[in-house]
């Protein structure tokens, strides 16, 4: 049933949800959206015959409900594949892979290496995006709810570490690196990768029921991976194409 794809072709664009988080996403001074995730999506949709993508920046927490509510056709925002999510949406094959990192004060004063370390230090607080992977990792590692601070965006997290409001801020490695680069602050340090945290990969997330569109997407994605064009798009942003090609959706979705 290709009706969804036909519909997108007819309207000439696909509505894509992205995050306000470089380098997954970047917004240039002229307002143009780029970044690893949207660039891949744009290319694949072009090959599928959908001329353009219309990207709207969204909170992490709002992406899946927005997809379910039909606000977007697809989410390409570094929304990592995990079993619960796989149940809520239809993922494509892996696109962007990254390990988890933590941003801490210079010298890592509390000696964090893993989320468990944060859990053990009863005075430590950790910041993470609401509804994101890092929040769940921290909670699963036993950090109590009140010590996991929901931080609205990366800059806020950086600022809160600088100001000593939280002891660590956790995001994927590349996101943290990008933050560090912009902040250019010698008093900060990145711990990457966080021990015990798996390497995650995101995929383009479609609404349940749009599997036909997802399958068409997968076909083009596989072609690009093979031809090397995939690597050409994402590697300038720091992502590893090899990592994405070394795993599969099924593996990630069935991981515990």
């Amino acid at each position, binding site marked *: 049933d290709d009706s969804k794809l036909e519909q997108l072709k007819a309207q000439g664009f696909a509505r894509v949800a992205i995050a306000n988080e470089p380098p997954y996403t970047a917004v240039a001074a002229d307002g143009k959206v780029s970044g690893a995730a949207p660039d891949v999506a744009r290319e694949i949709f072009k090959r599928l015959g959908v001329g353009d993508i219309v990207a709207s920046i969204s909170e992490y*927490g709002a992406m*899946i409900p927005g997809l379910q509510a039909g606000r977007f056709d697809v989410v390409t925002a570094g929304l990592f594949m995990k079993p619960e999510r796989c149940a809520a949406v239809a993922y494509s094959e892996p696109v962007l892979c990254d390990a988890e990192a933590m941003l801490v004060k210079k010298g890592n004063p509390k000696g964090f290496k893993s989320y468990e370390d944060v859990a053990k230090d009863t005075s430590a607080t950790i910041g993470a995006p*609401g*509804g994101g992977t890092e929040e769940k990792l921290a909670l699963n590692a036993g950090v109590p709810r009140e010590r996991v601070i*929901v931080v609205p965006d990366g800059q*806020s997290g950086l*600022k*809160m570490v*600088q*100001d000593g409001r939280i002891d660590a801020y956790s995001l994927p490695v590349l996101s943290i690196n990008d933050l560090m680069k912009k902040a250019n602050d010698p008093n900060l340090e990145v711990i990457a990768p966080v021990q015990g945290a798996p390497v995650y990969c995101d995929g383009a997330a479609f609404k349940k029921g749009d599997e036909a569109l997802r399958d068409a997407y997968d076909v083009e994605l596989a072609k690009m991976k093979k031809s090397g064009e995939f690597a050409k798009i994402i590697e300038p942003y720091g992502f590893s194409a090899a990592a994405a090609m070394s795993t599969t959706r099924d593996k990630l979705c069935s991981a515990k």
Partner: protein
Amino acid sequence: MEWDWDFVWQIMPTLIQGVKITILATLLGSVLAAIVGLGIALARRSPNKALSRTVGWSAEFIRGTPLLVQLYFIFYVLPDIGILLPPLVAGVIGLGLHYGTYTAEVYRAGIDNVPRGQWEAAKACNLSARQTWTHIIIPQAIPPMIPALANYFIAMFKETPLLSAITVLELMNQAKSVANTYYRYIEPITLVGAFFLAISLCSVVLLRWLERRYGKIER
């Protein structure tokens, strides 16, 4: 999506945590707003032109700009000049300052609404300025203000969800966090709405009562 009662009971304790913070923020914010408002109202009446103008314009500025942006400012920009506030404190200060500019207007109107004849009668009775304020003007000005002040405190209560932007885990933030964990929006958001509606409907009753009790002064 279907409404799921089991889910409702499951998330209830988390939401109640949020309710506590919401109420705490409102109470502290109200106290601060009442004090800040009085300060602004008095400063604007001051014969010192520089003081009254500065305070007047600042109040206008605060009243003309969104609380959300002010909260970002207090929380994320002030640390640059060495003022580091915990989230709840920053939130309470934001609410107190913002609503202080509203309560200031209530104070002003309350004082202005005491008829000029009362000032004149006080003078004809040879009362001093202080005696006039404490015995004649304030006792008449306060009661009609009470419903208006209560009204703003209720409005403030409904704006507490903004505090989620500065990481305060109030009700709305808890609801979003729950929703993000389970990918279910209907139940948490509806519960939050029902909670606000319940409190507002109660406060309508309270307001009517306050208005009857204090709203009018019989002459």
